[in-house]
């Protein structure tokens, strides 16, 4: 006995000195290797008190000598396997677990040395069962590191929930949660799920706090699996049962448990309306009385009374962690229940006085959400809470509070005044918030335009007191007032005349500041146009009103389309399918590219309306901005290149129209030079439209848009131009109108008023060539192709395009030719998205505009792939008697729908051609006959 003890102490002593050898970086390799040999030798001895130290030393050794790691891992693994195979499993439990720990950390440290790649389930289970408590707990906690099959884990964890040690029960429950959540959604047999849930429910009554809080997690997670496993008809009942089960532990004395319960409500996300209502009242509601959703799982009935006042308790909890979790889960519940009572809002409002910033912020976020759904009525009682939030020291709280104010509807002037005061005060304290504060005031003004007169009165007073001191004029307060006032005309309730023009002109001076604040509603150009417009209107007041309305309507509509969509970014914990209605607008919000396209379309619309109200300069500017914005967009998964191309073409067309427009607005008689300009513009417009029509494939709703533009072009032409082209024009007009009508019939859509009117007029005049110009103008004015449904860009919109290259050709490396003889031009051609039925031509033209068309054999590009490359040799006879000359080549597509026959060439296309690429110059030089040798 004496000796044995002696040997142990001796070895421990030796081990300690070995450790110093290992740690010392200067120890020679030979010593280290003998140390390694010695230690591995010790491994075989089944001396468990020593083995613990040996394993530790080996782990240290691997840390200091990385190159030995694979060998160390091998030797430990072989020893581990030896231990496993030995009969006396029990005494080795601890050693086995420790070996595993070292192995796992080794393999995690150098993943390349994959000597250890998990152990089989059986081995894992036997170690777990055999080991004493602390290694057992380690094994359970680290199970995920050993790549053990989920089924084995489930069985083990499930069994260990019966362990007498609370720490093991807790770890086992956490493991069950892990199995359910992480391990690839292992969902066993229904019985297993039910058993697991039932066991977790049992452990809600455990004596140990930590076990209970783990049990709550397990109940929520397995409850969800259970709910999912039920048939549709039973799900609701089952969900309620799980919810009530959780409610029953909400009054636990342990803070952790309460926090977990509220988090679990957030996980559950929803329950029956009656239960949710019950959670808001401590008194048992009549609806809840007697209603007992059967808890099929435990064959007990859960009473809705269990849910009584759950949130009241949560909100007035002593610990802020609980309050925070309660507010958070309250938020996610309110997201998913369609109707949410006012009392709920009151409860939340009370939380705005909480001492903790986190809780206040969460409460504000929840309120913001409710406001977003349009359910928030701020009562006077709660106004101080809001105003406190607006001047809170935390930036997040201020921001959220302002966001609520942006959406809120305040019932009376007193509150509006209070709100404005609060915002002004916050502006004073936190000048850095100015942009957002301006935007808040703008929206607040828009929402409460009926109180604007009173605010103007206050503003006047303010201005008068300030005017003594000129330097104060530009103060933030004034700008804040202004932004509030100028927003009023945008809501229909307020007539523009009540606002002094002064307000608008002052605002012009602060354009930069304002547009910075309002950037998400309108850009600087629009704002400028708007202000300018308001100035004229409020000054004149009278007949021009209709136009103002048009602008405002346009803005309003665009706002409704655009900024009116929920301000909240889709919360992470709300899956898309659970939202009551995921409108298109919402989906688009998710995608920034689509959003900006939308934005551009709205701007185009606004520009068009500006044009109508004779603000052509602003309109041009807006359109140019659109073009620039388009140029910055890049194609991605949600928006194809074709769609972008279509957009830019479309904007271009509108720009052309904008250029054409003033010619029609002014009197009919214009100077010739202008009419020539007009003629050119019209031609360009028509060509552009033709190009759009034949270059884009996959058009769906856009067809009608393009056709309407064509019709408009015809009408313009009819209105403005000489009698000579009328017949052709009218022919084209009626052809297009009937095509469009056909299109609408096929698509079962309703043609726009513009089309119907034009059609009617055409039928009225019948075959006679003349349409009265008044009627024409009337029709033209009707044009409004900006209804939003025309603008859903098809995602499979493709643009036909081509690239043409003449390899090796240039001014200094021309193609040789012999005058009078045909010459071949080698073309390298790349085609993109060419439809099968397209007719493609190669156009070869000289400088004097004589041209030759060469037809492409469709077989050249008939493949299925999107992009086709091929070589094509075009032969031309246009070789003049010249030393050098150039030809221009390009690729065109024949526009089959253009009925107008303009056949100029015998062998050329029968229809007009739209060009797909830029003209390429090809250089030729005469072959000099080299003197014969």
């Amino acid at each position, binding site marked *: 006995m004496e000796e044995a003890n002696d040997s142990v102490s001796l070895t421990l002593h030796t081990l300690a000195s070995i450790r110093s050898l290992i740690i010392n970086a200067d120890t020679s390799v030979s010593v280290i290797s003998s140390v390694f040999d010695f230690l591995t030798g010790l491994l075989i001895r089944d001396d468990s008190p020593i083995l613990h130290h040996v394993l530790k030393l080996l782990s240290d050794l691997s840390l200091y000598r990385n190159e030995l790691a694979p060998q160390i891992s091998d030797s430990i693994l072989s020893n581990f396997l030896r231990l496993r195979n030995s009969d006396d499993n029990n005494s080795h439990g601890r050693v086995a677990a420790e070996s595993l720990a070292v192995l796992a950390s080794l393999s995690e440290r150098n993943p390349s040395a994959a000597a250890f790649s998990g152990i089989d389930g059986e081995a894992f289970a036997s170690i777990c069962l055999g080991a004493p408590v602390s290694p057992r707990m380690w094994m359970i906690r680290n199970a995920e590191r050993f790549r053990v099959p989920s089924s084995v884990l489930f069985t083990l964890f499930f*069994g260990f929930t*019966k362990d007498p040690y609370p720490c093991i029960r807790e770890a086992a429950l956490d493991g069950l949660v892990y199995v359910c959540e992480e391990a690839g959604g292992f969902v066993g047999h229904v*019985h297993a799920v039910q*058993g*697991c849930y039932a066991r977790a429910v049992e452990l809600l009554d455990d004596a140990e706090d930590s076990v209970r809080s783990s049990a709550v997690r397990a109940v929520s997670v397995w409850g969800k699996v259970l709910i999912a496993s039920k048939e549709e008809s039973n799900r609701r009942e089952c969900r309620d049962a799980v919810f009530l089960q959780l409610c029953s532990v909400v009054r636990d*004395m342990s803070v952790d448990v309460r926090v977990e319960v509220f988090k679990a409500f957030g996980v559950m996300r929803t329950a029956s309306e009656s239960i949710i209502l019950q959670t808001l009242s401590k008194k048992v509601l009549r609806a809840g009385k007697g209603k007992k959703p059967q808890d099929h799982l435990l064959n007990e009935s859960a009473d809705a009374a269990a849910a009584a006042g759950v949130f*009241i308790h949560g909100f007035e909890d*002593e610990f802020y962690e609980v309050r925070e979790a309660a507010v958070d889960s309250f938020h996610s519940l309110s997201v998913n229940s369609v109707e949410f009572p006012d009392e709920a809002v009151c409860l939340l409002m009370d939380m705005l006085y909480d001492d903790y910033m986190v809780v206040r912020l969460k409460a504000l976020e929840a309120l913001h959400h409710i406001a977003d759904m349009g359910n928030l009525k701020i009562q006077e*009682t709660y106004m101080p809470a809001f105003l406190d939030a607006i001047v809170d020291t935390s930036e997040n709280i201020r921001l959220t509070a302002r966001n609520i104010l942006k959406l809120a509807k305040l019932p009376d002037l007193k509150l509006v005044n209070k709100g404005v005061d609060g915002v002004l005060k916050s502006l004073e304290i936190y000048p850095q918030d100015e942009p957002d504060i301006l935007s808040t005031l703008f929206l607040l003004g828009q929402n409460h335009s009926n109180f604007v007169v009173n605010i103007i009165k206050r503003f006047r007073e303010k201005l008068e007191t300030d005017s003594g001191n000129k330097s104060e004029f530009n103060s933030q307060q004034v700008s804040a007032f202004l932004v509030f006032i100028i927003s009023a005309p945008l809501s229909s309730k307020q007539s523009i005349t009540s606002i002094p023009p002064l307000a608008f002109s002052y605002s012009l001076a602060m354009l930069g500041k304002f547009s910075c604040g309002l950037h998400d509603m309108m850009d600087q150009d629009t704002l400028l146009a708007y202000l300018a417009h308001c100035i004229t209107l409020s000054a004149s007041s009278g007949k021009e009103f209709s136009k103002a309305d048009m602008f405002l309507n346009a803005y309003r509509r665009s706002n409704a389309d655009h900024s009116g969509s929920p301000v909240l970014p889709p919360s992470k914990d709300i899956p898309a399918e659970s939202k009551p209605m995921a409108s298109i607008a919402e989906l688009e919000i998710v995608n920034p590219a689509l959003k900006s396209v939308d934005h551009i379309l709205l701007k185009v619309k606004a520009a068009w309306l500006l044009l109508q109200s004779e603000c052509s300069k602003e309109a041009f500017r807006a359109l140019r901005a659109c073009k620039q914005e388009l140029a910055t967009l890049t194609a991605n998964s949600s928006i194809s290149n074709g769609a972008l191309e279509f957009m830019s073409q479309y904007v271009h067309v509108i720009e052309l129209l904008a250029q054409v427009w003033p010619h029609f607005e002014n009197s009919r008689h214009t100077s010739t030079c202008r009419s020539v300009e007009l003629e050119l513009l019209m031609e360009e417009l028509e060509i552009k439209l033709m190009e759009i029509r034949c270059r884009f494939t996959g058009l769906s709703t856009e067809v009608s848009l393009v056709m309407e533009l064509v019709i408009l072009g015809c009408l313009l032409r009819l209105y403005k131009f000489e009698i000579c082209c009328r017949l052709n024009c009218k022919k084209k007009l009626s052809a297009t109108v009937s095509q469009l009508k056909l299109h609408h019939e096929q698509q079962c859509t309703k043609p726009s008023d513009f089309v119907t009117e034009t059609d009617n007029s055409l039928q009225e005049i019948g075959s006679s060539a003349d349409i009265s110009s008044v009627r024409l103008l009337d029709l033209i004015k009707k044009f409004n192709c900006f209804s939003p449904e025309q603008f859903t860009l098809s995602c499979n919109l493709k643009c036909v395009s081509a690239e043409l290259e003449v390899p090796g050709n240039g001014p200094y490396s021309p193609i040789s030719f012999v005058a009078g003889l045909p010459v071949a031009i080698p073309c390298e051609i790349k085609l993109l998205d060419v439809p099968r039925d397209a007719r493609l031509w190669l156009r070869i033209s000289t400088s004097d505009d004589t041209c030759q068309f060469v037809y492409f054999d469709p077989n050249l590009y008939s493949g299925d792939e999107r992009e086709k490359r091929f070589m094509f040799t075009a032969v031309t006879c246009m070789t003049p008697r010249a030393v050098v000359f150039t030809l221009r080549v390009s690729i065109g597509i024949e526009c089959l729908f253009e009925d107008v026959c303009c056949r100029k060439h015998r062998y050329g296309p029968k229809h007009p051609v739209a060009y797909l690429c830029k003209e390429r110059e090809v250089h030729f030089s005469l072959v000099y006959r080299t003197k014969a040798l």
Partner: protein
Amino acid sequence: MAIDCLVLGAGQEIGKSCVVVTINNKKIMFDCGMHMGCDDHNRYPDFSILSKSGDFDKTISCVIITHFHMDHVGALPYFTEVCGYNGPVYMSYPTKALSPLMLEDYRRIMVDRRGEEELFTSAHIATCMNKVIPLDLKQTIQVDQDLQIRAYYAGHVLGAVMVYAKVGDAAIVYTGDYNMTTDRHLGAAKIDRLQLDLLISESTYATTTRGSKYPREREFLQAVHKCVAGGGKALIPSFALGRAQELCMLLDDYWERMNIKVPIYFSSGLTIQANMYYKMLISWTSQNVKEKHVAHNPFDFKNVKDFDRSLIHAPGPCVLFATPGMLCAGFSLEVFKHWAPSPLNLVALPGYSVAGTVGHKLMSGKPTTVDLYNGTKVDVRCKIHQVAFSPHTDAKGIMDLTKFLSPKNVVLVHGEKPSMMSLKDKITSELDIPCFVPANGETVSVASTAFIKANASDMFLKSCSNPNFRFSNSSAQLRVTDQRTSDGVLVIEKSKKAKIVHQDEVSEALREEDHIVSLAYCCPVKVKGETDGVGLIKLLSKKISETVSYAEIHESETCLQVGSFKGSLCLKEECVHRRGISSCSEVKFLCCNWSVADLELGWEIINAMKQNL
């Protein structure tokens, strides 16, 4: 064994709390209070029930006071100094600090102002307090060899505790007064999940269910704000400790937030002293206060000043906290006399007022005149606001606590009889726990837990060291059991200590032989032609090996064996295992028996053999 719970006070009433519990022959007195509404001998609990001789030291192991309210501590000096109890008295640190203040204050009012007979002197109070042993939260105190007590946080007032007491295996909890929700300055009650035989709970609000506290706070603040904004004076009569601090914190916060400059006064020196205690005893306050006090002690009220008598008639608005509450006497009543006639002023009454006090009269209606005790009448034109603040838990809180602790029995004290009855029904029906509502002087006896100690055999201990799960699939759900304990068998022999042995050891321990259940069946087998016994066995063995693939068959001349299954030719005319088939020439019988372990194998073989028929 039984636990006896004798209610000396606060049985079916509120006042003079005193419950004596006997657990395994140890008597513990919980609380020793006096009744504020009585002036006669009924004011104190009837201690004579405990001991006719008056030798309380022998009968009572210890006295435990839960908190410093007079109805819980008021009779203590009387009991120790006058009745002569000298045993240990336990109370929490704050209670020990604050009780003398309360007792002294009460003595002064009773003796100095009303001129009543002195029941105990200041010296009594001092010597009584010297006997007190202070308790800390969750500190387990071994009162004597068998009795353990432990205090848990109860909310209610500063230093209020619930008490857990354990003698042997029997354990009880006496709650005292408690609050299940946090208020401005105190936390909610906290207790572990304990194994209890009995829970003795207060039931002041046995039928009330209160809503959220926030609207109540708001109403109070608005009422006070409205009053001072209109230039009025607000009087808040309250006890020196507890409500005064809570309301003051509330007002101080609000004053800060709304930037109100109106002064808030505290009336007496006592309250200032009390505030000092609150400042010191931060660890007994709510989480919120604890976390805040690092930066600023919330009991350092910024807007609060001392009140001077001359200020009663000073012009301008103010808020005054004056003692005592309920407007029963003293300074608060005096101020009331002066302020009540003005319609600008406000009297805000927090909490409960005992019948017969001015406070009660004000609450029970809107009187125009009030009779004071000395016969003078006062015009009441001021506004009356009742603050529904209470430091007691509501009915739901009592239910929640009871549900959380799940004791075997519940006794309700400290409440009004009708509402206690309805709560009793609720506890009995909803929680399925027997509940008792004893009146003063009554005793409730409940059974107590007693564990038996037993030795365990080595084999059982060994089998216990490792988990031994068994999964079963019953009623459509997976269940797991740990077989460890169910493998044990408790053996109690006469005049020997109980012992747990492993089930494999049972027969040995009982000196009995093992019984093995086996099945037997005499199986008819059809014989073709003149096959003899050996041939038949061969034939069957072949047959069995065809159908039961895993079977390892041993055959001898006339019998065949597969595992525990044994079959041999039965030559008897009448075999007891033969059923329903009479012998005939073409049928031979194979008499089979097999053990339960091979139940299914046996039937499988028999089926195979029968097919040979």
